[in-house]
């Protein structure tokens, strides 16, 4: 089976004052098209470093990363930049949008970067923003939008150019609970509808209920992968900022699940 995203024994080692720090250690994961995966773990567990490598922003020390079947390790820096704008959608924790472009212009930016902006593209950007509840804010500059609205514009931008993989770094970090749920729900729906592979790094375990799998990392390694929908729902129900609660919950009594 060809995955939209696949890592094979990927490691990233930093040198710090002569000693090697393994930020990511021998990670092998796969994400198929139409699948939305949460990457969770405590701070320093290697989530963001792994995300940076998946985006081609960092080269792994060892291992292979395949996006849509293409090996990122065999690409030059310029090729990876070009590949990123074509095949990868990205949303960040903050500073997501270009402040001097309107919501619609920010979404169209990915099409411009790819030289594919035409009338149909503009229309698609409008539809996507409308779908995300921003139909009335197309011409608003980011400073006129709330944090949740800005995240939704960023999601639209990450999806507009038909990427194989969409990466989201803490998309709900600066949002209140209600908006956070709205944003991730919309995100997951579109990921599945458009048959993309989505990976979301999050500290907020309540958000994992919208994902198909939860990958927990600790000390650079994949500690646990949860695919069972009931178990995912249970994790989300207990929901805690600290991912350390996850192993505890795995051993928690069944009634919690039945209540959920």
């Amino acid at each position: 089976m060809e995955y939209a995203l696949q890592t094979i024994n990927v490691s990233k080692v930093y040198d710090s004052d002569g000693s090697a720090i393994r930020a990511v250690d021998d990670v092998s994961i796969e994400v198929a098209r139409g699948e939305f995966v949460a990457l969770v773990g405590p701070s320093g567990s290697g989530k963001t470093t792994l995300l940076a490598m998946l985006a081609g922003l960092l080269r792994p020390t060892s291992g292979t990363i395949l996006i849509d079947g293409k090996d990122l390790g065999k690409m030059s820096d310029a090729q990876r930049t070009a590949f990123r704008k074509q095949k990868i959608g990205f949303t960040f924790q903050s500073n997501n949008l270009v402040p001097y472009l309107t919501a619609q212009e920010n979404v169209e930016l990915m099409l411009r970067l790819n030289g594919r902006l035409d009338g149909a593209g503009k229309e698609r950007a409008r539809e996507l923003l409308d779908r995300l509840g921003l139909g009335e804010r197309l011409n608003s500059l980011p400073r006129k939008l709330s944090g949740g609205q800005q995240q939704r514009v960023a999601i639209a931008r990450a999806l507009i150019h038909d990427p194989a993989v969409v990466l989201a770094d803490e998309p709900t970090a600066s949002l209140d609970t209600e908006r956070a749920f709205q944003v991730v729900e919309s995100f997951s729906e579109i990921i599945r509808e458009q048959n993309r592979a989505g990976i979301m790094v999050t500290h907020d375990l309540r958000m994992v209920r919208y994902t198909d799998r939860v990958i927990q990392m600790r000390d650079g390694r994949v500690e646990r992968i949860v695919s069972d929908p009931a178990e995912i729902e249970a994790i989300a129900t207990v929901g805690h900022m600290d991912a350390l609660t996850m192993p505890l919950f795995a051993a928690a009594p069944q009634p919690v699940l039945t209540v959920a």
Partner: protein
Amino acid sequence: MAVYLALKEIWRARGRFLLVSLVIALITMLVLFVAGLAEGLGAGNREFLEKLDADLVVYQAKTELQTTTSRIGTSKLNELRRVDGVKDVGPIGLSNASLLYEGAAEPLNISIIGVDPGQPGEPPVFEGENFRTRRASEAVIDRNVAVRTGIQVGDTITIKSIQGTDEQFYPLTVVGVTDGRQNFLQPSVILPYRTWDKVRPQGIPGGDPNAELVANIVAVQLDDPAQWEQMAARIQTEAPDFEAVDRVTAYKATPGYKEQQRTLDTQRYFALLIGILVIGGFFQILTLQKVAQIGMLKAIGASNRVIGLASIMQITAITFLGVAIGAVATLLLSFGFPPDFPIVFAPNATGLAVLSLLLIGPLGGLVSVRYSLRVEPLTALGLAQ
């Protein structure tokens, strides 16, 4: 793409960029005024010698090329004429006096210049006609006098000079107007040589009729102007009482000319340096404020080429706008200057100043462009250190 990003940001943050442009405009005004002043003061000093219709200017030997100390008796002119290769010579007398004219609140200080009609040194007349004789009570005024006084061809002017210890007044008819011929920063009135000798300040009123006519310098035309260097050497060999130089050397020897130009050039270069630092500083601050945004753009796939070009285009556009505003403002302000204000916007000097101003923007902005190219896309994830 780069154009799109550059122009969108300029338009949406137009207040901020306009502020930078206005600072550039002020620097432009400063540089253009200093350049205009350098040109105006320089022209005021050199105009007469620069426009002289002579291939060589001859001074009395050992007078350090100073027109005020050089004295050449007209009887010696034949020595110059006899030098092989000399086509023609014309004595020129230079002195100062005051000009009285109808409607003047106070006399105008002028340079009075005596020239031999029909000989080298007589300026071309653009309005009216040339002198009829060496003794005519006639005057040709330069454009500066005409502009500042309103005197026209056919008007009568009076030149006042101190002779002995008394003021003497000489009425003359203006027969022609020539172009700008300032000498020592004073507008000029050109007189026939004999008339000049009578009018100029001297010990005996009207001059000693038995004394030999004395010129300050001699305008020399050559058979082959291209040979001026060899001819200057030959004149000094065959007529050792003289020192011959070209016009550029002559006006550069004017007292204070080089020092004045060096001072003004230093001011101009310093203003340009300030411009580079100010513009560089502005764009560096703007770039520092945009580090996260640049990192995000790179993370989503914008290449360094796009980021760099957008940055260069912004700097160039803002610099052009600032220089344009500054140049127009300088031009408008210059219309309000009095005619005797020594500022001249010569096409070459002004063009060079504008060109150097257009270059200082990109030059000053190079550091910020380099900085923006070095921003890592990992910044968007908070990973770059």
